[in-house]
């Protein structure tokens, strides 16, 4: 059983990690992150990069939907804005990787602010539909503004340029993406230790009384949209460098649903939830593939079943979590923590 932790300063009491156990977990996790590229084969490195990209974007959506309570189905479209920006910049300028990604984030943030304007008037389901509308408009722009977006063919992306080195292998990209994602996640966690994060949560819980407490709603809702789509834009930029081509089919509405599902499964309004949810949802197809491989000696034609099983499992997971664990995997983790804190007493 854990006895209460005694902190001597307020700074220690409000730190992101407060106990030795938490530091130990973080150390272990950091070790795994550093060791992974030396241990994993190329395919798993590919997945690790994809996880990093998806965690960044899901964390962004979690700020908007999980913490500010503004449901958005536009995260895919914001990622596309970032990806197109990076693709265009990589072709037209020789600017370094980090500058392009930052630009991708900023352009996406600007588009996010525009899309967020209706959020002052509509919320919930209506806002979700409004963001779908915005996605459709953006999709139309990507398809038809051929001089910039390359129309239906899309754009090829030149390899990421990091101080003269081209980042082409998954090993190199891993070292570029993971630190960016870690920084973004830490930034999001910090946000909720300050007045800005509190204002977001206040808007989610009771927007009308938030206003009386001195929070200008429009400003903070747009700020939440801007931060969230900045995250999406940076993730989209990484995505562009990862797949090296961006087209109108790269980010569909399914992509947006994927991120919403990721934060529901992981846990809305929890930083850990965004990380776990995005990781889990990215790896589910792989787990299923593994299962199908195991079954293949016994089931004829198992390979052909993979695709439908994947789709059904994806949908079923969302439904099961909504019904049985609406707080997501993060809540399960909290329960396990409580169990060990109180052991040998029952929770």
């Amino acid at each position, binding site marked *: 059983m854990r006895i209460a932790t005694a902190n001597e300063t*307020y*700074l220690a*009491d*409000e730190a992101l990690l407060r106990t030795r156990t938490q530091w130990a977990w973080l150390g272990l996790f950091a070790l795994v992150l550093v060791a992974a590229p030396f241990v994993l084969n190329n395919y798993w490195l590919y997945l690790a990069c994809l996880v990093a990209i998806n965690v960044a974007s899901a964390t962004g959506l979690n700020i908007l939907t999980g913490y500010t309570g503004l449901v958005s189905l536009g995260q895919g479209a914001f990622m596309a804005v970032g990806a197109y920006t990076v693709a265009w910049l990589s072709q037209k300028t020789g600017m370094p990787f980090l500058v392009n990604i930052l630009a991708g984030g900023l352009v996406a943030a600007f588009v996010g602010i525009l899309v967020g304007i209706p959020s002052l008037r509509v919320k919930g389901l209506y806002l979700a539909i409004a963001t779908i509308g915005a996605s459709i408009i953006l999709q139309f722009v990507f398809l038809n503004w051929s001089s910039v977006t390359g129309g239906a063919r899309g754009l090829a992306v030149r390899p990421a340029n990091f101080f003269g080195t081209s980042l082409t292998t998954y090993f190199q990209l891993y070292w570029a993406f993971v630190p960016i994602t870690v920084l973004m996640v830490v*930034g*999001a966690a*910090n*946000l909720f*230790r*300050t*007045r*800005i*994060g*509190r*204002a977001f*949560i*206040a808007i*989610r*819980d*009771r927007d*009308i*009384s*938030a*206003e*009386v*407490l*001195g*929070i*200008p709603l429009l400003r903070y809702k747009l*700020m939440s949209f801007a*931060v969230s789509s900045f995250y999406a834009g940076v993730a989209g930029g990484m995505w562009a460098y990862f797949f090296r081509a961006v087209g109108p089919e790269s980010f569909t509405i399914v992509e947006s649903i994927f991120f919403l599902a990721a934060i529901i499964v992981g846990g809305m*309004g929890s930083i850990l939830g965004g990380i776990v949810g995005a990781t889990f949802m990215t790896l589910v197809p792989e787990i299923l593939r593994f299962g199908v491989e195991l079954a293949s000696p016994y089931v004829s034609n198992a390979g052909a079943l993979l695709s439908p099983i994947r789709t059904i499992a994806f949908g079923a997971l969302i439904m099961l979590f909504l019904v049985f664990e609406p707080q997501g995997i993060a809540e399960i983790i909290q329960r396990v923590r409580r169990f060990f804190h109180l052991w040998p007493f029952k929770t």
Partner: protein
Amino acid sequence: MRAPMTPARLEIDGLSLSFGGLKAINDVSFDVKPGTITALIGPNGAGKTSMFNCISGFYKPQHGAIRFDGEDVTRTHPPLRAKMGFARTFQNIALFRGMTVLDNIKLGRHAHMKTNIFQALAYFGTAAREEMDLRAEVERDIIDFLEINHIRHMPVAALSYGLQKRVELARALAMRPRILLLDEPVAGMNREETEDMARFILDVKEEWGTTILMVEHDMGMVMDISDHVVVLNFGQVIARGLPGEVQQDPNVVAAYLGSGDPAALMKRLAAGTSGGAEAA
């Protein structure tokens, strides 16, 4: 120590508010003197909460003015009023359920803080310093003061009703109030909780010097702690004065209990006026 906030004077001048044909507030005027406790009472539907909502900026009255230390704030946006020093609690507790007690209280200071989004993401320099100063101040001046040390890290959803009301008062105090608007601070509380809350309200007045305007149904508590009482009925002021005077006022007795005179009641019904004021 606590930065002294000068208590504000609030003047309500000829305020009228109607929803369609319904006059919720009809030409109401009264003053709230700096550093005093003024109670706004009246039967259900008298317009007390509408009055509060006008003062905090939810409703835009059609006529009249609300003046805060002489400055007209009738059309001022609610977040700006918060910054000027309006703080309020709500009848049906408006705490943020997803946050701990401490975060709820700190949220009250929002309008007076400066951290911007970039500093917040980095939690460096200004952001960390501002948070720590706020924490120290909240601990010293508010959490100790309201005796809620033991629950500071608890989620508000887990608290009893009486404690939630106290946390809401704590959050209002964190707003650096120059006028504190309390909407039914002891509604639904048992006797002990009511006495605690009454003591805290008196302490706020004495130690912080804040001007307080409250709506309350608990007459015992109102009569005990108010300096001044304003009675509303059907959107109009029917009496005002010291607690003792108001209690004796025949208009007030009639509004609360009926006049006890069937003839007067029949006359009122025949005249078609619903107001107790004219009849009694």
